[in-house]
């Protein structure tokens, strides 16, 4: 538990693991998606070279971000799009509010935007009398349940269809017990169609923004971004600074990688390129910092800004699969979340880089080759240096360093530990010892290797037992 009383990953993960059947189901669903990703990657010639190219393009982008931002802005303006800059969530939300207020709009439809989740935009607008509906089915379901999305691509992957059916029964008046995915989707289609047709404002996220032309691309499978945007009078796009790419042709690389990495599909159903407002429509785009320039200034961690938000790292991470996205208490969860969050609030998210075994699977699936597991290790060093490690941990680590720093102490402590385990095992084999809760302790051998070696090093044929 952190000081503020909010639960940390270990506590939330433990609660998640109380229902083992659900964990198995959640784990299996995400592993299946990882397998689809593998199949799709293996069917794509030059897959590893594509990852390398994407990584290089994003490296180059970050190294010339200043110049590309200026180029992008100039092109946006030329295309008739209004451009805004926001330092943080507060400024971003104020800008959205002012755009809507200027047109007397009090209802908006929103497609997927992790950035606006980070900014808590919906809550901000609701407090000011503006109703926002999330049109992506998964996000809509989460909104009905007043829960944040648990996965950036599959927002309600942790929910069973019966639970979703119950939500629809409660909020949309469907028949109790209805849980068939097709029927539920049809109900949502009808309901949200009406939302699209009646709302004058639409907000989208940005998957990729092209500096060279000033256009931006929004990728969906549902078509919800387009249904909102093309019926709207006011179209707003919220974008993190790092979503830029230098040239139009680079979209070829990224669109070949994105859906394959995310869900094992060669491309999302819709990859819409928004450039100029429709006749009679206004287009606005907000460039948001919210900690990104600070991350840019961290040589060890700036690579995390290359992320294209595919969610592939979450699907492969065994800790994520077996603890659920909501255990990470951050808008972006999983491995990428764990290396982005400490930059946003180190105290609040000090536990996240430790919610990992550093297995490295995430780094291997990342389409832009962010060395996520290496950054998790580096964040641990920073967090401890800044003083956010739990006190008991610091003391035990110092004790360990002292013991292992001296051969004599080490030998004595090692021998003592083995003696304790053998003769006073009840001191260790009890519920207070976290290892012992669900695992037996290792058996105690009669002597250490060191002791055996001293006796036998010259007798090269001696058998140990």
């Amino acid at each position, binding site marked *: 538990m952190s000081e503020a009383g909010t639960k940390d990953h270990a506590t939330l993960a433990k609660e998640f693991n109380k229902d083992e059947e659900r964990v198995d189901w959640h784990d299996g669903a995400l592993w299946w998606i990882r397998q689809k990703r593998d199949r799709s990657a293996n069917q794509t010639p030059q897959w590893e070279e594509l990852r390398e190219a994407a990584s290089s393009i994003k490296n180059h982008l970050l190294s010339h971000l200043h110049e590309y931002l200026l180029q992008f802005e100039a092109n946006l303006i030329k295309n008739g799009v209004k451009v805004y800059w926001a330092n943080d969530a507060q400024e971003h939300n104020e800008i959205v509010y002012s755009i809507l207020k200027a047109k007397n709009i009090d209802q908006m439809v929103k497609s997927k935007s992790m950035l606006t989740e980070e900014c808590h935009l919906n809550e901000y607008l609701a407090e000011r009398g503006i109703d926002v509906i999330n049109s992506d089915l998964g996000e809509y379901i989460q909104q009905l349940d007043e829960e944040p999305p648990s996965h950036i691509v599959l927002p309600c992957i942790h929910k069973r269809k019966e639970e979703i059916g119950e939500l629809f029964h409660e909020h949309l008046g469907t028949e109790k017990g209805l849980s068939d995915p097709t029927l539920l989707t049809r109900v949502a289609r009808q309901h949200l169609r009406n939302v699209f047709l009646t709302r004058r404002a639409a907000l989208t996220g940005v998957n990729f923004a092209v500096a060279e032309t000033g256009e931006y691309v929004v990728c969906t499978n549902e078509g919800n971004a387009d249904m909102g*945007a093309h019926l709207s009078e006011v179209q707003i796009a919220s974008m993190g600074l790092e979503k830029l790419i230098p040239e139009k042709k680079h979209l070829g690389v990224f669109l070949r990688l994105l859906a394959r990495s995310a869900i094992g599909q*060669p491309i999302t159903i819709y990859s819409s390129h928004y450039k100029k407002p429709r006749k009679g429509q206004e287009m606005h785009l907000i*460039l948001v910092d919210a900690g990104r*320039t600070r991350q840019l200034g961290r040589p060890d961690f700036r690579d995390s800004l290359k992320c294209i938000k595919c969610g592939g790292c979450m699907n492969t991470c065994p800790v994520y699969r077996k603890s659920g996205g909501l255990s990470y208490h951050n808008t972006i969860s999983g491995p990428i979340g764990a290396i982005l969050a400490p930059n946003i609030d180190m105290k609040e998210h000090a536990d996240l880089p430790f919610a990992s075994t550093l297995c490295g699977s995430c780094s291997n699936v990342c389409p832009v080759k962010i060395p996520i597991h290496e950054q998790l290790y580096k964040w641990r060093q920073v967090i401890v240096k800044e003083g956010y490690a739990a006190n008991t941990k610091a003391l035990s680590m110092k004790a360990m360093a002292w013991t292992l720093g001296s051969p004599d102490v080490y030998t004595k402590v090692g021998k003592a530990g083995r003696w304790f385990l053998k003769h006073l095992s009840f001191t260790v084999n009890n519920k207070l010892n976290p290892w012992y809760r669900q695992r037996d302790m290792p058996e105690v051998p009669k002597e250490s290797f060191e002791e055996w070696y001293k006796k036998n090093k010259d007798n090269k044929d001696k058998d140990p037992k």
Partner: protein
Amino acid sequence: MNTREKILEAVLNNQPPATPLPDLAMFRNGGPGRPSQGPGIVQQYIDIFRGIGGQLFCVDELDAVKTLIGENFDTSKRLVTTLPELGLIAELYQPAADPHSFKDVELAIIRANLAVAENGAVWLTEDRMGQRILPFICQHLAVIVDTSTIVPTMHEAYEQIGVGNYGFGGFIGGPSKTADIEQALVLGAHGPITMTVFLIK
């Protein structure tokens, strides 16, 4: 200093040392030695599009499309097209219409700029759509694709698209879909429930 200047200054101060852009020539056609066109490319497009859940008919000329539409769609409902050649079986799209007025369109029939073999998607600019909303709001979407416009990969697609002179354009890869409920695939989310391609030689 206003926000814009503050952010730009922070970016300038914090950005890493320059690294070069990679050369993308190696990806042409999906790899060295691969063809840029031909029956193999066409077949790949057909197989992948059908694999996604799209319906596809190969026809010799546009006229055959009229019959197929009559056989496969409810012509008593509202059909809209941007192709003057199909003006007899469907309502010809009229520009300057309010996008909301298309909410009752059963079938929209439009023509693609090009198609991509590796992922089964078509590319359409807004002039091909008529109205931007049309290919999304219709219950069913039909797209005419000329075989000669099929390219192997996204790299060739962007080569043809270039900087582009459109206000809106998009790749469309099949019927709209979602798997948000327990990963069960459902065709027909918010966009069209089905997508049919008429592939003309």
